[in-house]
């Protein structure tokens, strides 16, 4: 034993170091274990829970949109999706199943097999094979179900608009949410969700959407939840993991989805249909309001579109065409999102304001020679009646739409008074209707002119009496929407109160605060507007005589908004020769004062030439229909009901 060169003492000392190393190592490990498992346990527990438990969202049904009589404007139809759960199909049948599916649904079998291969570690994953299959495909799948183990059909809600084009612009449409919006509505939406884009769907998105529910599911490391549904779309809890172990105790429904609230609209759907039919083949808009409450009975705009093409498969071509923004734009609601010069319709406001301010009385007369000059010199403004109206009071001026009378009135009144009353009624401002995309219109005033011409010389910024003259007959820079004109009309016939137009039937209109026009004022104005439609005594009927309805007191006012100067029109011999896009816009505002509910309506026909010929007959038909229709509504409803509920 020559190799025991170390003494026992030195050996002990050297071994002590090794023992020390062992003890140090063990201590380090235990200390680290303590820090992880005891000190920081809560942090790691939470991380493990986040790993494992994952809330699976259950989408809430979107609320329906109805009218007050129960007609469904938008609801959800079931869309059948074909899913495949590889775990329910023995591996030897994969190929057979894929080939059968190829025959039945025309899906390439290699793609299906590829999908199965991708999910081979989580056999209980639902693989979506095809979305929104047709009814005949569904039946064929059911017939062949014995050949298709693991194939299920789940049902997902899909938006549907049963009436198609009717009220399509009001309802709006849904579309898949974009990435940017996902960030905007942080956490409320998920990829693949639909969100309202226009119309009611957009404005009442929060009400219609509902609250999503969620169930907790156990998540595998790959992040795919193991979820299953039965063939009716109800969620089944996970029964097994990939090796067949029970996982039930970990998965429970935490919160049921809260479906979106149904929304009832004030629309009168038959009136709406009629209005849209009346506008066929011409561009324009019709607004019908309840003059007292502001409830909207109809908003028609032509051309329009069928919102179904945004939510139904296989309508890509139509969708593309719509979104290409071709003229005329079918997606614009002309009643609220376009503004036009109001033309003679504006005279109603001017007459009422002048009477209210005391600038004129009902007896005040002006002489109309057919043209007008400020101070007898300078530029000449024409009356539409070449030879003039002679001596007119405000009544005749309204009935026969005398321009010269209102030039005088406008000058006497001044721009400040006009804009004050426009503001009171809501002209040139958003009316606050519950639809997105409303434009305010424009009523020019001194500040506006100074602002718009700020970069120009001082004399351009100044407001001149000529501007007032232009404004007096609703020309110049003045622009309103059909809805605003309807609101103006409603204010005249409801006793002088500002109204707030709305579509939601649950909306409670605010109490009228102030009477804008006194009773006497309104009486005078109404007489004038009545004379416009029907003869009173010896006075012959005015420009709106085509709007007369037997047995109903209709008041109205025509308007022809020039978009080209009169000089330009003189180039053409007859009116028919004027190119379509240069013709005047035809307006007609009307109201009914002796029936309940009082309706106020506004008809706009783009390039319709004359309100008296193009717009007034339409108003006549609307009023006639509204008050004289036969009560066949109920019969129609009964016939309609099954189609709405069980079709498809």
């Amino acid at each position, binding site marked *: *034993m*020559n*190799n*025991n*060169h*170390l003494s026992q003492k*030195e*050996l*002990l000392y*050297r*071994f002590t*170091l*090794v*023992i020390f*190393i*062992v*003890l140090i*190592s*063990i201590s*380090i*490990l*235990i200390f*680290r*274990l*303590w820090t*992880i*498992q*005891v000190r*920081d*346990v809560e*942090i*790691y*527990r939470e*991380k*493990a*829970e986040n*790993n*494992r438990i994952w809330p699976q969202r259950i989408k809430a049904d979107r609320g329906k949109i109805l009218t007050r009589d129960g007609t469904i404007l938008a609801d959800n139809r079931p869309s059948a999706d074909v899913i495949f759960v590889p775990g329910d199909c023995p591996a030897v049948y994969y190929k057979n199943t894929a080939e059968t599916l190829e025959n039945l649904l025309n899906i390439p079998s290699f793609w299906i097999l590829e999908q199965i291969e991708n999910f081979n570690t989580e056999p209980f994953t639902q693989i979506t094979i095809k979305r929104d299959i047709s009814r005949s495909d569904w039946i064929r799948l059911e017939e062949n179900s014995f050949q298709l183990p693991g194939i299920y059909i789940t049902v997902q809600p899909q938006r549907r608009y049963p009436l198609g084009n009717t009220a399509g612009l009001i309802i709006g449409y849904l579309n898949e949410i974009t990435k940017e919006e996902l960030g905007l509505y942080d956490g409320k939406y998920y990829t693949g969700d639909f969100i309202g884009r226009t119309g009611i769907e957009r404005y009442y998105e929060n009400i219609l959407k509902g609250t999503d529910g969620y169930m907790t599911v*156990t*998540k*595998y*490391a*790959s992040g795919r939840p193991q979820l299953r549904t039965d063939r009716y779309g109800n969620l089944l809890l996970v029964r097994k*993991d*990939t*090796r067949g*172990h029970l996982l039930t105790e970990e998965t429970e429904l935490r919160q049921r989805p809260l479906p979106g609230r149904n929304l009832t609209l004030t629309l009168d759907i038959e009136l709406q249909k009629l209005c849209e039919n009346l506008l066929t083949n011409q561009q324009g808009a019709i607004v019908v309001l309840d003059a007292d409450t502001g409830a909207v009975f109809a908003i028609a705009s032509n051309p329009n579109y069928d919102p179904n093409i945004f939510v139904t498969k296989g309508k890509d071509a139509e969708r593309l065409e719509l979104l290409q923004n071709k003229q005329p734009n079918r997606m614009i609601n002309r009643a609220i999102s376009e503004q036009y010069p109001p033309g003679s319709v504006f005279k109603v406001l001017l007459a009422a304001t002048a009477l209210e301010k005391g600038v004129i009385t009902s007896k005040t007369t002006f002489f109309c020679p057919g043209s007008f000059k400020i101070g007898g010199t300078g530029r000449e403004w024409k009356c539409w009646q070449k030879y003039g109206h002679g001596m007119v009071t405000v009544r005749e001026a309204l009935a026969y739409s005398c321009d010269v009378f209102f030039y005088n009135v406008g000058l006497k009144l001044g721009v400040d008074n006009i804009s004050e009353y426009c503001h009171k009624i809501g002209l040139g401002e958003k009316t606050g209707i519950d639809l997105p995309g409303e434009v305010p219109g424009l009523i020019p005033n001194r500040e506006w002119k100074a602002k718009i011409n700020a970069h120009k010389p001082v004399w351009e910024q100044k407001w001149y009496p000529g501007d007032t003259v232009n404004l007096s007959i609703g020309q110049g820079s003045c622009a309103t929407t059909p809805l605003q004109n309807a609101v103006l009309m409603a204010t005249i016939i409801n006793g002088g109160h500002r109204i707030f137009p709305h579509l939601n039937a649950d909306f409670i209109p605010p109490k009228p605060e102030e009477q804008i026009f006194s009773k006497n004022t309104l009486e005078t104005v109404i007489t004038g507007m009545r004379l416009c439609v029907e003869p009173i005594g010896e006075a012959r009927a005015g420009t709106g005589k085509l709007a007369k309805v037997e047995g109903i007191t209709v008041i109205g006012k025509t308007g022809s908004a020039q978009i080209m100067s009169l000089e330009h029109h003189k180039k053409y011999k007859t009116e028919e020769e004027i190119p379509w896009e240069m013709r005047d816009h035809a307006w007609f505002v009307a109201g009914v004062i002796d029936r309940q509910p009082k309706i106020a309506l506004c008809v706009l026909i783009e390039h319709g030439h004359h309100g008296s010929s193009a717009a007034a007959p339409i108003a006549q038909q609307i009023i006639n229909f509204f008050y004289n229709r036969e009560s066949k509504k109920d019969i129609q409803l009964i016939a309609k009901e099954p189609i709405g509920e069980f079709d498809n």
Partner: protein
Amino acid sequence: MSSIEQYIIHPPKIQFEIEDSSIHIIDWRRLNRVDPILFLLMFILAILGWVNMYSASQNEGYSYFIKHITIFFIGLPFLFFLTTIDYRIIIASAPFLYALSLSLLTTVLLFGVQAKGSERWIPIGPLRFQPSEINKIIIVLTLSWYFGKIGDKIKRLPWYILTFFISGIPIILIFMQPNLGTAMSIAPITMIMLWIAGCRLWHWIATTLAGLILVGFIFFQVNSLTPEKIQAGEHPDFLPLKPHQLMRIYTFFNPEADVQGGGWQTYQSRITIGSGGIHGKGFRQGTQTRLKYLPEHHTDFIFSLFAEEHGFYKSALLIILYGLFLLRCLQLALYANELKGKLMITGITIIFLFHIFINIAITMGMLPVTGLPLPFLSYGRSFYLTCMAGIGLIFSVPREKSYLFSGQVL
């Protein structure tokens, strides 16, 4: 002529190594050298390993569990067989084993089978043999033989340096496989055995410091890279590591930076251990493992599974059990009757210590992932047999009479 050259020219004859010619090479009576305490500790660890493997393999239909038990009962006769052999013969044959292992390592480099991107296996029929595992034991044997031969000449610098050539060649060969963990494990084995062999203190301290500085330098170099650069195959000039190995070192420094990639294992392992808490989630109730969040949960990260299911107290107890196991080994080494026996036991103990410490440290996110198994708990048949062999060799060393269970019969 130095004595090492003499040995190379005239290989030692085995008969001369055994002083008493009447001793049988294999004698069943040596079985009473089996230390009951160490055997009991080993058996407890093995049973814990089975129980744990039962839980770990529930996703795989218990196939690993059955194989894990089987290998223990295959290894047990092997252990007793090694105990009955006179250990001096094994140590005397170490140079041949060393040459054999070098040729095996060369073979595996040239003809090895790819497994997880590294060449480590030699397929022999249906079995796959991992030469780098048995190599650790052979290094220990060779060093024991070498230190036993040169005796106190180890205090002289040339003999001291020669040690590093003996252990350096296999390190380089294993490193080229590349098997980072095994290659690194040889360094502490060499250092501790040099220490026990009686080298000079300043030699030892200088070498250790130099090694630590080298390791620190490597870490600094690796840390200066970015994951993208590493994936593109970039590496420090002196460190020809494969991208996945560099990533392992890199993610050690930046574990949170790359949660889904290389740091995923460590991150999930820490969550697994931490979520166990003081009392654990209960046997076979570990959610992290069952839902496949913890990768390699039956091999390298088996401790995480144990800690998750059994909690802090039992996990600490397991670590203490390993500590007692190691201390008992060292105790046997201390009472071995000659230096080469002491050296062999110490070397084997350090193999165990290295595996236990590095493995558990990795699961707790203290070290980069290198792929070292945990003795008796991890699934891995080559390594399990190596452990059993190591314990067999520990038992085969006779102890002095002064010590209870000395095992001195012949």
